[in-house]
C-alpha cells in the first residue's frame, strides 16, 4: 500500500443519542460504529458491504464531514474529516442513494450549474465540465428537461454527475444503485468501475454482495458497526473455504431421509427448498466430493436429478458473516 492511504479510519466510533418520550424523557444510546479500522489505497474501488442498519451511511457521513465521530479519527487524503473539513470538502465528491437531493423543478443542467456554484468552480471550467459529464453519463439531449420528468436511472446519473463536478480525488457512493432497475444498476456499476480505472478512489457502500463482487477491488463486510471481514472478494470467500456445497433435486422425497445426510462427517447444514414440483436440497459441507460418493448409499432408491457440487460463493461467505445477527 502507498505511503498515505486515500481513506483511513482509526478506531472510529459513533454513538447516536436520541431522546424518547415526552413526559419522562429517556436518553437512548445507539452505537452505529464500534471502533472501525480501515485503510484504502489511492485508486482503489473499495466496497463496504453490510445489511441495513450496519453503519454504512454513518461511516460515509463521517468521511464526507457531515457528521462528527464520537471518538477515533477519519482521514481522507491525509485531511482530518473533523477539523480540516473546509479543505477536504473541495477535494471529495459524494452521492447518497435514493432520489432526494435534486431540485425537481429545475432542469438537469440548471441543477448542475447551481451545484457547481456551491463549489465556486470558475465559469469556463464548469461550462466545459458540465457538458463533458452530461455526455459521459448519457444525459445530453435531455439536460434542459426538468428533473421531475427524468427516469429513476437518469436521476441517479445526474446525482453522479453532480458528485463529479469538482473533479474529486475521492468519491463516496452510498448505496448508489438502490431503487434502480437491473439495467440501470448495471449501467451505473460500469460507470463507477470506469471512474476507478481512470484513477479515482471510490468508496462504495452496498447491501448487494454481487454488486461488491462484480466491481470492487477490495471489500469490507460490516455488521452491527464492526468490520467482520476484509480483503479481496476471493480472499473473503476463504471464510467459507471448507464449506463446499452439494445440491440436487428430488421429487416427493420423505424429509426423514435427509437425517442420514445430516449425520455425515463434515456436513454443517442441510436445507431444503421447494422449487416448482421438485425439492432442491442444499448440503453445506467440508468435503463435497466425499458427500457425493455417499449420496447414492444414503438416498438409495430415490431418483436424484441435477446433482452438482460447487465451490463457495461470496454470497455464502456473506450469509455466514452476517447470518448470526439476523
Amino acid at each position, binding site marked *: 500500500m502507498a505511503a498515505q492511504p486515500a481513506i483511513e479510519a482509526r478506531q472510529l466510533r*459513533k454513538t*447516536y*443519542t436520541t431522546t424518547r418520550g415526552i413526559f419522562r424523557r429517556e436518553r437512548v444510546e445507539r452505537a452505529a460504529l464500534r471502533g472501525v479500522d480501515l485503510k484504502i489505497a489511492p485508486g482503489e474501488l473499495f466496497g463496504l458491504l453490510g445489511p441495513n442498519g450496519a453503519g454504512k451511511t454513518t461511516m460515509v*457521513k463521517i468521511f*464526507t*464531514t*457531515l*457528521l*462528527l465521530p464520537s471518538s477515533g479519527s477519519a482521514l481522507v487524503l491525509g485531511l482530518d474529516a473533523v477539523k480540516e473539513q*473546509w479543505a477536504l*470538502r*473541495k477535494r471529495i465528491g*459524494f452521492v*447518497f442513494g*435514493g432520489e*432526494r*437531493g*435534486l*431540485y*425537481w*423543478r*429545475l432542469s438537469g443542467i*440548471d441543477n448542475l*450549474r*447551481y*451545484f457547481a*456554484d*456551491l*463549489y*465556486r468552480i*470558475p*465559469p469556463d471550467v464548469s461550462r466545459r465540465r458540465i457538458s463533458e459529464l452530461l455526455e459521459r453519463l448519457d444525459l445530453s439531449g435531455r439536460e434542459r428537461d426538468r428533473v421531475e420528468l427524468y427516469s429513476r436511472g437518469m436521476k441517479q446519473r445526474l446525482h453522479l454527475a*453532480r458528485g463529479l463536478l469538482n473533479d474529486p480525488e475521492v468519491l463516496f457512493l452510498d448505496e448508489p444503485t438502490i431503487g434502480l432497475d437491473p439495467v440501470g444498476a448495471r449501467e451505473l456499476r460500469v460507470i463507477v468501475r470506469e471512474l476507478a480505472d481512470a484513477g479515482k478512489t471510490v468508496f462504495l457502500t452496498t447491501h448487494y454482495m454481487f454488486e461488491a463482487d462484480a466491481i470492487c477491488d477490495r471489500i469490507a463486510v460490516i455488521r452491527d458497526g464492526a468490520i467482520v471481514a476484509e480483503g479481496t472478494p476471493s480472499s473473503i470467500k476463504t471464510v467459507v473455504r471448507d464449506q463446499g456445497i452439494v445440491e440436487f433435486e428430488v421429487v416427493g422425497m420423505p424429509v426423514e431421509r435427509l437425517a442420514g445426510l445430516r449425520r455425515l462427517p463434515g456436513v454443517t447444514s442441510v436445507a431444503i427448498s421447494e422449487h416448482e414440483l421438485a425439492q432442491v436440497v442444499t448440503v453445506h459441507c467440508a468435503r463435497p466430493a466425499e458427500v457425493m460418493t455417499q449420496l447414492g448409499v444414503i438416498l438409495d432408491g430415490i431418483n436424484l436429478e441435477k446433482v452438482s457440487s460447487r465451490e463457495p460463493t461470496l454470497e455464502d461467505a456473506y450469509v455466514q458473516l452476517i447470518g448470526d445477527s439476523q
Partner: protein
Amino acid sequence: MKRLALEAAVFGRSTYLQYVALFQWANPQGYVAYKVLLPVTQILFFVELGVYATGPQNALYFALGNALQLTANAGIFGVIATVANERQYGTLPILLASPANRMVTFLSRAIVNVIDGIATVVVGLAIVVVLFGLNLQHANLLLLAICVVVISLTTAGLGLMFGSIGLVMRDAIIIANIVYYLLLIVCGINFPVSRLPGAVQVLSFALPLTRGVQAARDAAAGASLGQVSGLLAGELLVGLSWALAGYLLFRLLENWARRGGLQEAY
C-alpha cells in the same frame, strides 16, 4: 476583484435558480391571481374594518399601511418556503457538505423574496391608487421607492430568522403566521404605534416595518430624504440584526447537525 466578480456572478445565478425552483408556477394565471388577489383581499378587509371602527376619513391610512405590510408576505413566508423546499428536496446535506461560503448562500436564499416583496408592494400600491384614490402628486416618489426597497429587505431579514428556525421545526410556519399578524397590529399598519401600550411599543421598534412604514407614509406625503433618514437607518439596522441572528442560528444548527442532532437536515 476577480474573486468578488465571481461571487457576484454566483450570487446572481443562485438567485435566478432559487426563483425558478420556487416560483415556476404550473400556470402563470395562478401566480397573477395570487399576486393580485391576496393584496386586494387583505387591503379591503383591513380598510373595511378600520373604517367601520374609526370612520371613513382614515381609509387611506389603512390602505397604505396594508399595501406596505405586504412585503412581509414575501419576506417571511417566502423565505420559509425556500427552506421548506430545501428540506423537501433533500438538498440540505449537499449544501452542508459543500465548501460554499455560508454567508453568501444564506443571504442568496432571501434575495428572491426581496424582489418578490417589492413586486407585491407595487401591486398593492397600484390597488390603493385605483380603489381608494391615493393621490401621489405631492409624494416624494423616489423616496417612497427607496422605502419600499428598504422594508422588503428588512422583512426578509426577519424571514431569515424563521428560515433557520424552519430547519428544525416543521411548524415554523405557524409561528410565522402569528408573527405576520403581530406585524399588522404593532408596526403602525392598522394602529398608530403611539397609541399602543409602552411595553408593546418596545416590541414595535424591535421589529422591521415600524420605522420603514412611517418613513413611507411621510414620503407619500412629500417628505424629503433628510426628514426620514433616521427612520430608514433604524429600519435597516433592525432588519440587519434579525438577518444576522438568523445567520448565527443557522451556523449553530449546522454544528449541531454535525454532532448528529439535526436528523431533519438529512
